[in-house]
């Protein structure tokens, strides 16, 4: 297909440029990396050309900067602030961009901003592609009665009441290259035997008031507010939470066999403490590690160890040592399971030990050992409990908040006590009003716990976004929430901390949402760690339809599982069946800018894809691929169907390997 270069600007002539810059000697050049053309170069040629023109005229270029999408005010402002010192030394800033970019810069700087370009009129507006079809955006679409050919754009005169009579041999009088749109319209309608429609359904007079100032103002403001709500970027996926949001947590009995991987956490894999033939009790520690970052592993059933072997892991790409236990169904508890105290009686240091012994990790998916977070030397002033659960379909946290509010609040207070903090916040998205109202009733006065309702937006559950939204603090790139004095924990984790303290129970079970297409018994289930997905599939009656896939985790960030003989682990918050991505080929990036708009980490995903393809790991690293949180926003909206998350996972691996 013919691809059009929709670059919006071209340099003015030398004479015009110098006329514009009269009286300005020292010039700083800011240029935009163009949108809507195929991504080929890093540096556009216009900058060098302008630089030459300026030098020849005896002017000094004191610096230049090329940015992607100059019109993206938020990111451009940040970039300008970083280079503020240099820019402010100039007499004028010369901008190479379309009119929108120039105006954006002029608004941000307090020195003369001079345009170096004319903006090219495309005759209508293109879509999110480089196709020749254009739309006049007239607000009263005539395409139904014109056979899908637009008279507003394609007729040189924009006539809506038929041919003007000026065409000769099917060509418009404006140019021999241009076909008469109305002849084309007639021909297409005649081909469909619908030509009478031109008489029956005549287009009416055009209403030029449709795109009025007020309409545009209102719309622009509402969209801007929605897009920049709380934190930069993000998307609004279909929530589809209604399937299981009202379903109370149901216990699923432990199966005959459980498969407990010795790695269910970020950090070092555990060593097995048991061997084949050993009898174990529920809650007994069966794996530990001396490594700095690791989390203990416990048996979720009582019974006999029948094997310790490497098995497929649901998240990791390599086999992991796994303890397979035959359940004797007696559910005998280990003798170590004893209450350790209450919020009032337990000592600060003891909470840490209890959490460590219970093998608690972040249960939102990242599985970072909780005791390590608690034991940080960095000062913490706020413990933030993440009740956002922004992934579509999932309700596990929501149900916990509705059904066990006291547990969660006390769990949070235990975390506050462990870190010596007096301030705790539970942030709940406004699509979970029931959870919010329930928690509200149970927060004890004077406990320092605050409840906060936040507007729903994906990926709010990512800790950086939540911190930005709730506390307006920005976690530095490459840094952790602890760097800005915040400890973020998941709802499930708070409940697990409560259990570990009040009953002494280690983390051997968790609540999981099972939902999606083809699930006959969807719901929220309490499931023992180590239960195979295939067992859950049987119990919940899951049949995966064609073109659908089963994922562990959420609909967007979840990991697709081809092999269902893998166990539920500590970080599993959902088992869901969703439609596979379209089976469409990836096309070259057309720099539409959507991924830059939605990336909550403020990266340039389109560039990172470009660098990954060129195997340029230097630039990948420099442009911050290691900061990617794999939220999938960019992939979700990519108009070229780039598999970005997969590409960035690989980039990160390559960058890290090179560092070693």
């Amino acid at each position, binding site marked *: *297909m013919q691809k059009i270069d929709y670059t919006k600007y071209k340099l003015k002539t030398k004479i015009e440029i110098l006329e*514009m*810059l009269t009286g300005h000697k020292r010039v700083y050049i800011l240029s935009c990396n163009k*949108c*809507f053309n195929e991504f080929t170069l890093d540096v556009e040629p216009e900058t060098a050309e302008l630089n030459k023109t300026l030098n020849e005229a005896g002017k000094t270029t004191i610096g230049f900067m090329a940015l992607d*999408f100059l*019109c*993206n005010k938020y990111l451009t402002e940040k970039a300008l602030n970083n280079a503020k010192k240099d820019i402010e030394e100039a007499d004028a800033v010369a901008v190479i961009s*379309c*009119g*929108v970019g120039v*105006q*954006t810069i*002029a608004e941000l700087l*307090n020195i003369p*901003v*001079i*345009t170096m370009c*004319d*903006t090219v009129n495309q005759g209508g*507006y293109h*879509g*999110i*592609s480089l*196709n020749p*079809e*254009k*739309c*006049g*955006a007239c607000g*009263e*679409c005539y*395409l*139904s009665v014109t*056979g*899908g050919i*637009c008279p507003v754009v394609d007729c040189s005169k924009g006539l809506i009441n038929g041919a003007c009579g000026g065409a000769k041999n099917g060509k418009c009088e404006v140019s021999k290259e241009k076909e008469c749109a109305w002849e084309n319209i007639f021909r*297409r309608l005649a*081909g*469909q035997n619908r030509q009478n429609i031109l008489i029956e*359904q005549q287009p009416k007079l055009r209403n030029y008031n449709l*795109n009025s*100032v007020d*309409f545009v*103002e209102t*719309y*622009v403001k509402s*969209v*801007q507010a929605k*897009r*920049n709500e709380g934190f930069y970027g993000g998307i609004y996926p279909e929530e589809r939470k209604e399937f299981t949001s009202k379903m109370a947590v149901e216990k699923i009995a432990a199966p005959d066999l459980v498969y407990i991987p010795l790695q269910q956490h970020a950090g070092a894999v555990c060593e097995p403490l048991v061997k084949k033939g050993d009898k174990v009790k529920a809650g007994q520690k069966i794996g530990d590690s001396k490594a700095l970052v690791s989390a203990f592993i416990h048996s979720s059933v009582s019974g006999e160890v029948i094997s310790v072997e490497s098995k497929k892991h649901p998240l990791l790409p390599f086999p992991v040592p796994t303890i397979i236990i035959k359940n004797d169904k007696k559910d005998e508890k280990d003798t170590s399971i004893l209450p350790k105290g209450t919020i009032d009686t337990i000592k600060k240091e003891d909470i840490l030990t209890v959490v460590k012994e219970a093998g608690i990790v972040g249960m939102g998916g990242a599985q970072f050992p909780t005791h390590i977070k608690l034991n940080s030397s960095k000062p913490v002033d706020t413990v933030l409990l993440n009740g956002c659960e922004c992934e579509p379909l999932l309700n596990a946290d929501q149900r916990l908040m509705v059904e066990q509010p006291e547990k969660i609040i006390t769990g949070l207070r235990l975390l506050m006590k462990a870190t010596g903090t007096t301030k705790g916040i539970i942030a709940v998205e406004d699509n979970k009003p029931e959870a919010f109202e329930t928690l509200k009733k149970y927060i004890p006065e004077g406990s320092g716990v605050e409840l906060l309702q936040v507007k729903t937006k994906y990926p709010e559950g990512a800790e950086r976004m939540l911190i930005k939204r709730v506390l307006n603090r920005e976690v530095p790139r490459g840094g952790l929430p602890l760097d800005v004095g915040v400890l973020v924990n998941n709802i499930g984790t708070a409940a697990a901390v409560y259990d570990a303290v009040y009953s002494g129970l280690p983390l051997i079970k968790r609540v999981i949402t099972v939902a999606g297409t083809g699930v006959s018994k969807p719901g929220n289930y309490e499931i023992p760690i180590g239960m195979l997905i295939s067992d859950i599939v049987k119990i919940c009656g899951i049949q995966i339809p064609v073109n659908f896939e089963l994922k562990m985790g959420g609909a967007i960030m979840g990991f697709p599982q081809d092999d269902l003989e893998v166990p539920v682990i500590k970080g599993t918050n959902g088992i869901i069946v969703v439609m596979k991505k*379209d089976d*469409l*080929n990836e*096309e070259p990036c057309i720099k539409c800018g*959507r991924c830059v*708009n*939605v990336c909550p980490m403020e990266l340039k995903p389109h560039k990172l894809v470009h660098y990954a393809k060129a195997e340029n790991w230097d630039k990948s690293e420099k442009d911050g691929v290691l900061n990617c949180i794999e939220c999938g926003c960019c992939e979700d*909206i990519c*108009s070229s169907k780039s598999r970005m998350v997969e590409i960035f996972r690989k980039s990160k691996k390559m960058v890290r390997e090179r560092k070693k």
Partner: protein
Amino acid sequence: MLITRVKKKDAILSLCKGKTLLIACFGCKEVHFEEKEYQALKEDLKTSNLNISGEIQLDYLCNDDYTNKRFELHKKEIDEAETIIIFSCGVGVQTFAGLIPGKTVLSGCDTYVLPGFSGFTPSSHDCEQCGECMLGFTVGICPVTACSKGLLNGQCGGAKKGKCEVSKNKDCGWERIYNRMTVLKKDDLTLKKMIRVRNYNK
């Protein structure tokens, strides 16, 4: 940047004949596709005895490579339908209609334009692509778009308290230019240089 609004039922119904297939483009639905209104219209069309033979939801209909591939995927539904209603911007409708010129293709939406060209957050600044950029003379505020009348030679005198006579929500573009010039301590010599007749042939 284009946005769409779903048409009224009556504007669509009279043009439909026989089995009708609905195709909705959700590519830009993120912010600008009236998803709820579309669903409501669909239900309304159903109760108005429109013979809806099927519905396809897809994205980026404007990309003809993808749209072509999707023809193959949905060939049966498309062949069977006598009328196809496309819910997308004008580019999507034209792309689709151009690829199957023998079929009656109707547009289910009206398309509007918001300021900004790239990405999906509309800009507060508009550019009319006049082809003879004057921003260098007007301290970076565009008289063609910021002034309701697109005047190049100063304000018309119709503004009251800085607001344009077209709408109370719109600032007078020329007052904005004047105010920024005061901040930048610029004289109006450059403005005098700028004024020439617009060349609409560019």
